[in-house]
């Protein structure tokens, strides 16, 4: 019966999208499968037929050794012009006359003797050549050759390597990824000098043709995982990929879930660590945010800095983070449940002062808490989007209004301000769960307002079932906790000393290979 209903729904969906199907199947750029001919002008005509008249397209015609006509085509601004002049035009136009050229100057001779460039490839298809031009390569065409030389002389203005703003660290490398794919891969390569580190590039996006690079260590990442990542990337049907968020939303396991099952980071050291766990990284051209899969819940509580500092303090920090997470999702709900339903749980002195504070407040605590949370979220959103100086001004004004004036005016009770402030501060401790935390907090608050402790418990049960149910690329989302894994616990609520963590996280890498040889107690401690 349900199958039938599902089929009907699916059919309806198909027929209804048929009308507006134009958006579904975007007109891809003309995929000409024409081959290049031996006639230079015809080839240039072909390319000009595909790339519309645009004033950044540069076609430079010249003659090699006073005999053969040739041309280079590139997009102005995407190539390093000095290098183009020095390594292509100069040898071809100048050196070719000085040397004693052979009787016939053909394209192989140009490639092997004249061009002073490292990266050269040859293509026969016009559309391949066009794609390369659009990506920033220089295309060399010459009369009498039915192929194009693709000369890699990309060079454009880019942001330098800076310290990322999202994941600030006290100790650890300061570099962050940039918007250029190649630089990002080089930063990972510099961290992991391992011959098994592999980068594979795909193109995603019918119009944007964005380069998407999969990075993994061949003997650590599971082949099924790599295949799955590739399968999902290849299935993406979209016009544009402008940021890794696009990819993330297309490949995640549970698109309707409030939890992200794809991780992201701006820090090469973090991504390198994840690769070494057997994960797969997805680097997208044009954004400093690199995706890593699989991503489990516990990762939100791990920071690369945890592994750079000593273990006792880090373990304490971990527990603080977990506490903060629970405070951030539960504090308003518990406060409302306590003050509305279970007053007997509050010590007498405290409930007296709370009652006194609530004396003149016209709203029940649920309404109070909802208003405050809403206001907090508005303030946060305002502060994030505005230019920094104005943002600060907004925060100060907002904080004064909700903190001081609302209490003095008797709109909000003072304890509620404390609860919301604690919640807000706690929620910033785990940036990765900021979005899911906000939703959980509000749902639990409403449940607590209607059903008290029972509502909170039921909400937490439902949340737990949902999280237990989630998977990220075959790895259960609550991995070291449920299903329970003893060795994984060493890197969860605490961070055990590094020399005790001999195994990679379970369920992710090829096997439970030893991460390194057990080195026993730390060095310098043998006496």
């Amino acid at each position, binding site marked *: 019966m349900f199958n039938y209903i599902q089929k009907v729904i699916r059919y309806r969906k198909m027929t209804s999208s048929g009308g507006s199907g134009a958006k579904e199947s975007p007109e891809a750029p003309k995929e000409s499968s024409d081959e290049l001919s031996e006639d230079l002008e015809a080839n240039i005509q072909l390319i000009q037929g595909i790339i519309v008249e645009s004033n950044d397209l540069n076609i430079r015609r010249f003659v090699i050794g006073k005999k053969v006509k040739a041309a280079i085509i590139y997009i102005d601004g995407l190539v390093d012009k000095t290098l183009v002049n020095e390594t292509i035009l100069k040898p071809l136009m100048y050196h070719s006359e000085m040397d004693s050229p052979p009787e016939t100057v053909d394209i192989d001779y140009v490639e092997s003797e004249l061009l002073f460039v490292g990266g050269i490839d040859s293509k026969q298809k016009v559309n391949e050549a066009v794609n390369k031009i659009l990506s920033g390569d220089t295309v060399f065409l010459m009369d009498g050759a039915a192929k194009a030389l693709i000369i890699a002389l990309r060079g454009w203005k880019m942001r330098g390597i800076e310290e990322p703003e999202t994941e600030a660290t006290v100790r650890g490398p300061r570099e962050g990824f940039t918007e250029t794919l190649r630089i990002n891969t080089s930063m990972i390569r510099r961290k992991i000098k391992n011959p098994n580190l592999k980068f594979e590039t795909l193109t995603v996006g019918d119009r944007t043709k964005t380069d998407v690079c999969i990075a993994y260590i061949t003997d650590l990442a599971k082949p099924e995982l790599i295949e799955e990542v590739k399968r999902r990337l290849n299935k993406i049907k979209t016009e544009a990929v402008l940021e890794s968020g696009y990819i993330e939303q297309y490949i995640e396991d549970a698109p309707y879930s409030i939890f992200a099952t794809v991780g992201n980071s701006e820090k090469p050291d973090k991504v390198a660590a994840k690769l070494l766990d057997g994960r797969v990284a997805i680097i997208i051209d044009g954004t400093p945010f690199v995706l890593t899969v699989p991503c489990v819940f516990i990762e939100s509580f791990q920071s690369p800095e945890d592994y750079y500092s000593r273990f006792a303090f880090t373990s304490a920090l971990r527990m603080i983070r977990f506490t903060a997470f629970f405070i951030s999702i539960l504090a308003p709900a518990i406060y409302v449940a306590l003050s509305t339903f279970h007053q007997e749980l509050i010590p007498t002195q405290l409930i007296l002062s709370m009652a006194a504070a609530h004396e003149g407040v016209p709203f029940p605590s649920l309404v109070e808490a909802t208003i405050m949370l809403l206001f907090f979220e508005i303030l946060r959103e305002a502060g994030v989007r505005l230019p920094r100086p104005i943002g600060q001004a907004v925060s100060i004004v907002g904080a004064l209004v909700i903190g001081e004036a609302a209490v003095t005016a008797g709109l909000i009770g003072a304890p509620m301000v404390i609860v919301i402030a604690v919640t807000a501060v706690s929620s910033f401790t785990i940036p990765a769960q900021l979005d899911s935390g906000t939703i959980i907090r509000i749902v639990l608050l409403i449940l607590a307002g209607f059903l008290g402790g*029972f509502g909170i*418990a039921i909400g937490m*049960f439902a949340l*737990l*079932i949902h999280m237990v149910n989630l998977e990220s690329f075959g790895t259960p989302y609550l991995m070291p906790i449920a*299903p329970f894994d003893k060795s994984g616990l060493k890197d969860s609520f605490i961070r055990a000393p590094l020399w005790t963590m001999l195994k990679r996280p379970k369920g992710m890498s090829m096997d439970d290979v030893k991460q390194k040889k057990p080195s026993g107690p730390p060095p310098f401690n043998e006496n």
Partner: protein
Amino acid sequence: MKLEKGVITNTQLIYLILSFLESMVISINFSYGISKQDTWIAVLAAFVITIPIMLGYTAIAKSYPGKNLIQINDEALGPYVGKLFSALYIWFLFELMIHYAYFFNSFWITYIMTETPRLVFVAIFILVSAFAVWSGIETIARCSVIFTIIVSITVVFVISLLLKDMKIVHFLPILDLTPKDFIQSVHIILTIQFCDLIAFLMIFPYTKNNKAIRKPMLLALCLSTLMLLIVVLVNTAVMGVRITNTTSVSFAITREIDIGNVLTRLDVLVALTLLATVFMKVSVFYYTTVLGLAQLLGLRSYKPLIVPIGLIAIAISANLYPSDMEQVYAGRNIWPFNAMLFEIILPLITLITIALRNLFKDTGGENE
């Protein structure tokens, strides 16, 4: 065809049984009124009797590895009697589910939220339980790990806070009860607490190593009996003979906690923990009911049955007893005999049939 594709490990099975049996902390309340401060002896006696019964259950499961109770009935008892037995078992599991759903919220309504209609609790509870059942046995098993840990922590926490209130003298006089009362108490503990495990005959085939189920089952049984024993001892040591006055002792004793006027009235905390244990229990019964019914009716999936069974359960469970006193009466005097039929007599018939079949198979082999 397998209705459930999930597989749980044997370790998860231990946790599942543990969290399943942890709700004994509430259902033991039926016994306090009968065996008073000697309930702990009744627990031990019931445990000793339980072991052979559990061995019987595992023997049934082991003789048909990879088959659940419904399939075993079909094979052991033939298609007609087997179907009848299966229908009876499914009814029993369903009955258990609605009773536990009633049970938890009668407790919640009596003590905490006295003015909320029962329907609200039952409906929301079964709804979330349905979510767990929808997700399958793997999810339930994974949740059980977390629930077991939470409950154990709460028990240790509450006990440590109650240390100062415990008095050995509350156990005296020992064995001051008639044999009839003692037997009744043991009977209640046996049928209501331990032999609910018959539901696991539906779950055993989905364990990874379904031939080695005896060890995890007995281990979990021992651990949970230990926990029950500790809880009963603590309850008795704190409450003494007052233990008969309340319908929920574990809950009542936390009201005694008063640490420096700060940690007082932790009863809601305990109530939430107890909620977790009942949640596991209802989920397991819910799951086995729909799974069994789907198997009996020959469906391709058990999921279409979740909503109708849930709705029926809500409707019945919200109106199960006119008052809580009648529930206590039924729990003490009627339910043990009802449960005995399904937990002891029917499995015994199945076991004997299997044994006879094996016997005839062997002799048949010799004759040829």
